[in-house]
């Protein structure tokens, strides 16, 4: 049984339908990447799984349990944790408080000392407001905050967005450590090279539909190009 599965998942914002029947699965300890252009529905897909957008119960399964439409806080307690697009750190909380609040609903293997070991720069700035961090440090803080909830599935939404390539490399460098804990990861990326490097399997979305799936080694550049742009 897959750890997480979607079956014919659809999502809409009012009259605008953003996802048209997405079916995919994620196994325990697996990392998958979802790639696609702006507006392909990648972020919508993660938000729906996390419980920020409504869906029918049978459209999302976690360990076989129908959890579609469950509220976000309840999914966190199951171990489905989202690193939201744009980081969304809490501006009135310090760096350390941002990390601590990650463990509000659920906690486990990841503790403050372990997060600081993973991202030493956060330890130096623990008492400062989260807004004083640079973009890359904020992203580290957002990932650390999500880890504090001891995720079984870590959903990462565009964590490379707006960051310098060298910073992106530093951030992705911690993924092996996270994977070593047995955490399954879903990465949404516009940076195709980064996505192919980190993932066991890749899905490509285009305008709310899945246009390609496979292992990175099996996919040709042309096939990805066609699935990405639809030409």
């Amino acid at each position, binding site marked *: 049984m897959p750890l997480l599965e979607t079956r014919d998942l659809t999502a809409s914002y009012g009259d605008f339908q953003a996802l048209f029947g997405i079916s995919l699965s994620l196994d325990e300890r697996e990392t998958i990447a979802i790639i696609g252009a702006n507006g392909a529905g990648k972020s919508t897909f993660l938000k729906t799984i996390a419980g920020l957008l409504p869906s029918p119960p049978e459209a999302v399964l976690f360990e076989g349990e129908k959890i579609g439409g469950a509220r976000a*806080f309840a999914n966190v307690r199951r171990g489905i944790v989202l690193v939201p697009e744009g980081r969304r750190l809490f501006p009135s*909380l310090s760096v350390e408080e941002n990390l601590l609040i990650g463990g*509000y609903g659920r906690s486990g293997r990841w503790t403050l000392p372990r997060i600081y070991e993973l991202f030493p720069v956060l330890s130096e700035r623990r008492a400062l407001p989260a807004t004083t961090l640079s973009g890359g440090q904020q992203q580290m803080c957002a990932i650390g905050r999500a880890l504090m909830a001891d995720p079984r599935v870590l959903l990462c939404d565009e964590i490379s967005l707006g960051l310098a390539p060298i910073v992106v490399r530093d951030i992705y460098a911690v993924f092996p450590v996270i994977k070593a804990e047995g955490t399954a990861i879903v990465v949404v990326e516009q940076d195709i090279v980064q996505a192919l490097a980190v993932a066991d399997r890749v899905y490509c979305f285009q305008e709310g539909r899945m246009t390609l799936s496979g292992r990175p080694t099996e996919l040709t550049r042309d096939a990805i190009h066609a699935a990405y742009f639809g030409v």
Partner: protein
Amino acid sequence: MTAALDTLIQGILLGGLYALFATGLSLIFGIMRLVNLAHGDLIIFAAFVILAITSALGLDTFIAFLIAVPIMFVLGYALQYVLLNRTLGSDILPPLLVTFGLSIIVQNGLLEGFSADTRRLPIGEIAGISLPLGGGIAVGIMPLLSLVAAILVVVLLNQLFYRTALGRAFRATSDDSETAQLMGIDNNRIYATAMGLAMAVCAVAAFFLGSRATFDPTIGPARLIYAFEAVIIGGLGSLWGTLAGGMVVGIAQTIGARINPEWQILAGHLAFLVVLVLRPRGFFPRAFD
């Protein structure tokens, strides 16, 4: 000189009471951007709860007050969870309409249950005792205690906000309720807890209001205005600011009353207008919003 000092001291003491009126309002506005138009009526409701416990069980007013605090917490929690959470959203109108309706319901419910008679919480001899400070100035024990209570409430709430996991959850939910849910925080329960705390503070305000002045079921809205003024003078979202705002209204009213007893209320409102002109965001606005 003595008269001026006396006016200032009495104003500060009155300000303590107004700060107690305002703290609950400030708390729930800060956390969930809910403007509770029934806040004044809920303070009066709390005063009647204390009165009812006193007369039904024959208990001392202070003991009745201690019993009323948790009762008000539970009622506030239920009020928010069952009713007010449904009004929260991107539109600010539904909570205003619903709490306005609630204000009318509370007033009329109290009129039905307790009649329009003016009441006072019986606290015995302590009501008349005052402490001479020398130079012909004396402060009443109860006004002094209400100021101490106001400071204590603000200190305790700030400790809760900045030292506990629940406080972090309050602040995170206030910043960004959607992302707070991604931390496993059930924002409906957080809002209900905040309203419970606000109502517990209402019970404290009710105890000091009812023991120093008379009250009847219809005086809530007037108390609401002082509370609003204190919150806005202090700056939205800051509890210390609310305490300071209460002081400003209290001192202005006392000065006004000293000049001419008819000017007491007017002077408070004028001070509010002056602050609005000079510091539209209040004394201690939050750095962001």
